[in-house]
């Protein structure tokens, strides 16, 4: 199932690599396997989406990459080093904006700097630049409750980038937004990514979102999560929202959708809704 990207990705060095990653956890009824023999390789400046049905361990993947959860077999590596705990080279953006309501937007963006023990004064101007990048420079001294959901999530993105990590991990960052805001945010994220050129691991359950944003879309099977497809998206950038109706976009989406249809057919119907 490892496709042609393995050969042409050798041009750029790998930044984040999952090597035969397996993860079991104990439940009351015994041991559950969340991930099994999972291989994903993300190159420098590459935008990779991980697509999968609910409960396939997408978010677990993100916890492993951010060093919050150790693997039970195999390893996750960041620039060749096995990940053993939280790492300053990683930035995270969660499904919820998870901002601190008692801190201003700027203080929230600087939170990782304080947390990592870096000099806050030096990073202030970088934080302001990032707020500018996400079009929120006028709101630096506002509090999160004064911002809309989409704006809050953009603060979250700026926060994930503030310490200049190599990799940005995004766990369904737009899932809590309404459909219109979501589409705007897709365009915004593409622009931000094109300006910063970070490696991105983007976890989603939305096919159009994955196709629109990604260089590659990796599809996971139902639990235990394994890679069942690795699709390269070669559409030119910057991609426009209206491109989503193009034939190529449609073909990619259709292929991914077919994978889900097949999965639903083979799965126990009760599992599919879980």
């Amino acid at each position, binding site marked *: 199932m490892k496709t042609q990207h393995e050969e042409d990705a050798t041009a750029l060095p790998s930044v984040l690599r999952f090597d035969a990653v397996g993860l079991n956890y104990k439940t009351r009824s015994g041991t559950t396997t969340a991930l099994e023999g999972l291989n994903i390789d993300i190159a420098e400046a590459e935008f990779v989406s991980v697509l999968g049905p609910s409960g396939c361990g997408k978010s677990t993947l993100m*916890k492993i990459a*951010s*060093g*919050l959860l150790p693997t039970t077999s195999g390893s996750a590596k960041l620039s060749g080093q096995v990940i053993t*705990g*939280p*790492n*300053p080279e*990683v930035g*995270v953006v*969660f*499904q*919820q904006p*998870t901002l*601190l*309501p*008692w801190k201003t937007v700027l203080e929230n963006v600087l*939170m*990782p700097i*304080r*947390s*990592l023990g870096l000099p806050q004064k030096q990073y202030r101007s970088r934080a302001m630049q990032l707020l500018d990048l996400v079009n929120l420079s006028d709101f630096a001294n506002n*509090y*999160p*409750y*004064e911002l809309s959901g989409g704006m809050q999530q953009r603060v979250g993105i700026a926060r994930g980038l503030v*310490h200049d990590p190599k990799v940005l991990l995004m766990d369904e960052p737009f899932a809590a937004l309404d459909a219109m805001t979501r589409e705007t945010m897709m365009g915004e994220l593409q622009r931000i990514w094109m300006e910063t050129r970070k490696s991105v691991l983007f976890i989603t359950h939305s096919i159009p979102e994955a196709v629109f944003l990604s260089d590659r879309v990796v599809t996971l099977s139902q639990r235990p999560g394994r890679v069942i497809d690795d699709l390269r998206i070669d559409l030119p950038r910057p991609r426009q929202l209206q491109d989503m109706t193009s034939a190529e976009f449609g073909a990619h989406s259709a292929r991914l959708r077919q994978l889900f249809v097949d999965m639903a057919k083979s799965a126990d119907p009760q599992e599919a809704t879980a």
Partner: protein
Amino acid sequence: MKATLQNIGLFLISGTLLILFWQFWVVWFEVPSYFLPSPEATGEALLYGLSGPYYPHIWATLSATLYGYVLGCGLAIVTGVIVAETPLVEKILTPYIVALQAIPKVALAPLIIVWFGYGLSSKVIMVAMICFFPVFVNVVVGIKATDANLISLFRAFSASRWMMLWHLKLPGAASMIFAGLQVSIVFALIGTIVTEFVASKLGLGVLISSSMTNLNVANMFAIIVLLAVLGIALNEIMRVVHRRVVFWESNRN
């Protein structure tokens, strides 16, 4: 703002009517003043008291209440944080805390007076004990209720335990902690008065019990009115402090 003015207006009208009714009742039915003093007699007693004799007592009651409150709440916050953060300490302390919580604290007042005497320290200890639990419980629950997503976020950014406590858990629990502090300020006044009833040299509670011995019911009424005003003022101060400190809660819409 308009609604507030309206509320105040309504309160003033109903209050005046109530006092008038009380005055007429006492005069009409010739109620003896050792049973129910008229508002006039109560007012006179209050004015006389406030012209001088009350002040040492007000000061004694108020200082004991505030010292005890600060001590009890401070201990509650520190202990609450330690218990919420260290499961071993929680396991060790829980049975004692539950047992102590089950005792009506005022029942300990005579014992505390035997140990600590008729002065300020007995009252402070009593008040501190009464204030401790509402705050303690809210600190523990508030800290444990910290948003799991925010904890993941802090951990992903390598936050130290101290950073997590100071910048996440405590501010997150602030609203609950203040709810406890607000309950406790009213309890604190009760603690002081009860201890003063049992035995004390000075205090508004002492004045009430001595007025009872002299059947000076007008003076009792005057002090009760004074205590009501003090209680409302303390509660109101805490409410304002709560709103100021936990500003993000009241602004969330």
